[in-house]
């Protein structure tokens, strides 16, 4: 297992392009921005998680029922399937959910990547917004999917689930140890999903008023293991997670196609 942060130069070069957090102030010109929060002028930042200088997982509920753990790995919030032994397979789920009341409206953005070792059955991974208080393994009545994919698979889905109805879109990404940015804007009239800074789907209240959440939402990161199955050792890590209010209007985001609706959905997040 490569425990040191790999491809540091590439990773931090991308990070530098996206830096807007409180711990650093860019000097001079930044490289091309890819974060939706920067591209579309979101602000102000109300909550930041970037674990830059020794922070712990405080403020996040951590949960694992197998070989995994949640920790801070080189400044990233990591859901890590384990186990400790090199090149061994994992079992169980690993979940972390932000504590607190969450936000009913606003903008969220995460910068994440996943690494894998010891090939077995690939973990499905999910980045979500769920109502505050949702249990670590619960697929509640409301789940905003910022991104979900399996292993190094490129098909990356995003959308929203409300009870038995689901609106879902997808995009193809290189998920092999590669950082991506996933953003979500939720107003009273529109919800928009962003991937690497660009809008990928939009759903309006006129199209589907029942889709709009009414509860305070919090981020959740999930490694979803198959019960009783040896899984690929996987680490899903967030370099940063930010929440922005809607106080700043921001730049106008062009309309995109709505996600596809399915009804009578059950048993999946």
């Amino acid at each position: 297992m490569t425990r040191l942060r790999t491809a540091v130069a590439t990773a931090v070069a991308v990070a530098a392009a996206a830096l807007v957090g409180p711990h650093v102030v860019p000097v001079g010109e930044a490289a091309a921005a890819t974060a939706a929060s920067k591209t579309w002028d979101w602000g102000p930042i109300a909550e930041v998680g970037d674990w830059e200088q020794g922070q712990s997982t405080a403020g996040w509920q951590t949960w694992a029922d197998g070989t995994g753990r949640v920790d801070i790995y080189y400044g990233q919030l990591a859901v890590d399937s384990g186990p400790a032994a090199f090149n061994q397979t994992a079992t169980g789920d690993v979940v972390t959910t932000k504590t607190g009341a969450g936000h009913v409206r606003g903008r969220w953005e995460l910068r994440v990547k996943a690494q894998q070792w010891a090939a077995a059955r690939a973990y499905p991974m999910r980045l979500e917004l769920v109502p505050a208080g949702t249990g670590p393994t619960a697929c509640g009545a409301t789940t905003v999917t910022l991104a979900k994919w399996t292993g190094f698979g490129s098909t990356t889905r995003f959308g929203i689930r409300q009870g038995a109805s689901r609106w879902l879109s997808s995009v193809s990404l290189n998920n092999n140890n590669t950082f991506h940015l996933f953003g979500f804007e939720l107003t009273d009239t529109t919800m928009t999903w962003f991937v690497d800074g660009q809008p990928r789907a939009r759903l309006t209240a006129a199209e589907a008023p029942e889709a709009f959440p009414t509860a305070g939402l919090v981020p959740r990161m999930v490694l979803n293991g198959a019960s009783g199955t040896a899984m690929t050792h996987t680490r899903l890590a967030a370099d940063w997670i930010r929440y922005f209010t809607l106080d700043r209007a921001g730049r106008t985001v062009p309309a995109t196609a709505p996600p596809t609706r399915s009804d009578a959905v059950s048993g999946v997040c």
Partner: protein
Amino acid sequence: MTAVRRTVAAATVLTALVGAPVLTGAADGTTVTGGTLAVSRTAGIPGEELVVTVAGLPGPAARRATLERCVAYASGTTTCTYWVAVEGSTGVTTTDHGYTFHTRVHAMDRNAYRVNAPASGTSPAVLSPELPVRGVQQEATIKVPATATVGTPFDVTLAWAVYVNRTNQPPDRPGRQLALQQRNADGSWTRVGAVVTAPSSGAVTVRVTPTVAGAVTYRTAVYAWAPAGQDTRVGWFPSYPSVVVVR
């Protein structure tokens, strides 16, 4: 002192090519390198206290200076392509050509620091030499027997370490507190026994006497660390869990 002259046009082109910052300099764009830099540690866990001292800055004895940290390197090299100001280190004024900055180690494998003093009057901008500080990951481990017997004590080794060169090494930082924890059915954790203090090796052995049969999941919890007299703030850290089957 080495003079590095850059025209505005050249700096703009360089920025466009590699994303490098446009250096702040005197009106003619002159920037010089000078002074000496010292760091209080060459490696540290993110959050550990780091003191950076610059001395002998050329130009006026008192001038503004900023501590900067590299956040991007040219691929495959240690050549920094992007510097950022370290929070809380801007706007300070040097005295007697020097200044001491207090910060904490950042969470990157390779950190590099330098001091940037903008142009002051007729004195050109000054960049100090840069120094690397390696960020090392903290780790926690646990050793338990695979099986145990109800009523018979067994030993558990709790440890914390620093992860260097792909191996766990003794932290050489005595005094950190550890605890053995047991996973509950709902996924929460309960401490078992007393909190113990680790020596320089980072390892402590505790004894457990199981009272009921079944699979018990344990982990080491390494407590948050803020040793007295330092500005270190390192968060708590868990080991991977490990299972003992009690018969």
